[in-house]
C-alpha cells in the first residue's frame, strides 16, 4: 500500500505515515518515499522492558542479563545507556523502579532518532539502499 500510495502523491509535499512503526518498517517506508513517522512503540515497548540497541533487540527483564555488567548499549547516543549496565537496568525493572522504564524509553527514542538521522546521512551520501539492507538484518536480531 505504501509503495502504491507514494507513486500517486505529489513529490514536492511531505508524506506522513501515521503510527509507523518498527525500525525495519521505518527503513522500508523511507525507501518507498515516506518523510514523516510517529509511533508509541519506542516508549510503550520500553515500559515493558523491550530495548532497541545497535546490536539488536533485548528484553532487559530476562534473567540472562542479571550478571551482564556491560553497558545497555555502548554505541548509544543516550549517555544513560552507555553509563548504566544491563545488570543494573534489569535490576530496576525486576524491582519495579521508575528509573528502569525511563532509561529504556531514552534508549529507544534515541535509537529511533539516530536511525532516521543515519538514514538522512546515507541518502545524502548516496549509500541508502546498501545501508538499509545491512541494517535490516541487524535490526531483526534478538539478543
Amino acid at each position, binding site marked *: 500500500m505504501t509503495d502504491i500510495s*507514494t507513486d500517486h502523491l505529489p*513529490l*514536492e*509535499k*511531505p508524506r506522513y505515515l*501515521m*503510527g509507523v512503526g518498527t525500525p525495519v518498517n*521505518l527503513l522500508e517506508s*523511507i*525507501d*518507498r*518515499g*515516506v*518523510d*514523516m*513517522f*510517529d*509511533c*508509541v512503540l*519506542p*516508549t510503550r515497548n*520500553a*515500559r515493558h522492558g523491550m530495548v532497541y540497541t545497535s546490536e539488536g533487540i533485548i528484553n532487559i527483564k530476562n534473567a540472562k542479563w542479571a550478571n551482564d555488567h556491560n553497558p545497555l548499549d555502548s554505541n548509544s547516543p*543516550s*549517555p544513560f545507556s552507555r553509563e548504566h549496565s544491563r545488570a543494573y537496568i534489569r535490576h530496576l525493572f525486576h524491582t519495579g523502579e*521508575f528509573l528502569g*522504564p*525511563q532509561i529504556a*524509553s*531514552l534508549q529507544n*527514542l*534515541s535509537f*529511533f*532518532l539516530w*536511525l*532516521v538521522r543515519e*538514514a*538522512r546521512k546515507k*541518502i*545524502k551520501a*548516496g549509500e*541508502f*539502499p546498501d545501508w538499509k539492507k545491512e541494517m535490516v538484518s541487524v535490526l531483526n536480531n534478538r539478543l
Partner: protein
Amino acid sequence: MKFTITSKADSGKARSGLIQTSRGEIPTPVFMPVGTLGTVKGLNQHMLRDLLDAPVILGNTYHLYLRPGTGIIEEAGGLHKFINWDRHILTDSGGYQVYSLSGMRKITEEGVKFRSHIDGSSHFFTPEGVVDIQRSIGADFIMAFDECPPYPAERKYVNDSMHLTHRWLDRCVEQFQKGKHHY
C-alpha cells in the same frame, strides 16, 4: 511552511529534505516522539530537547480535548506554554482514537457522536470542531478529521469511508482558512 527536498537516493524512492516553519527546521525523514497527553511518557522536556534533540513531538486532539480540556490549555496560552516546549508540536485529529477508544460512536455526514473512554460522557466531533480544538491547542501541524475504518472491512465500506474523509478534509481546509492563529 516550506518543504524542500535536498537529496534523493539513486535507487528506490528515498528522499531527504527540510521542513521550515516560523518555529524552526525539521530535517526529514523524521521520527516524532508521541506525547499524547502533553507528555512523552516518562521523559521530561529537557531530555527531549537536550538529550534526544527531537525537533517535533505529537499531541492528540481527542485526549487533550477530554483532559485537561481546551479551556485550561487556552488559559495557559496554548500547549507549547502549558508543557514548556518551544519546538514543533503536531496534533493528530482524534479520528483514530474516536474509533479505537470510544465504546460507542455514531458516524453521520455531519460528524461523529462518541462516548468518552474516561467517564462515558457524550461528545460530538465535526471536521470544523476538530480544526478549532487544534487551533486552541496551538499545534504547528494540524491533521484533518478522518473516519478510520476497521480492518478488515468490505470494499464498499472502505470506498465510502475514503470519500467521507475527503469531504471532511474540504470542510477542515475551509474552517482552517476562515480562522486565525490563537497565539
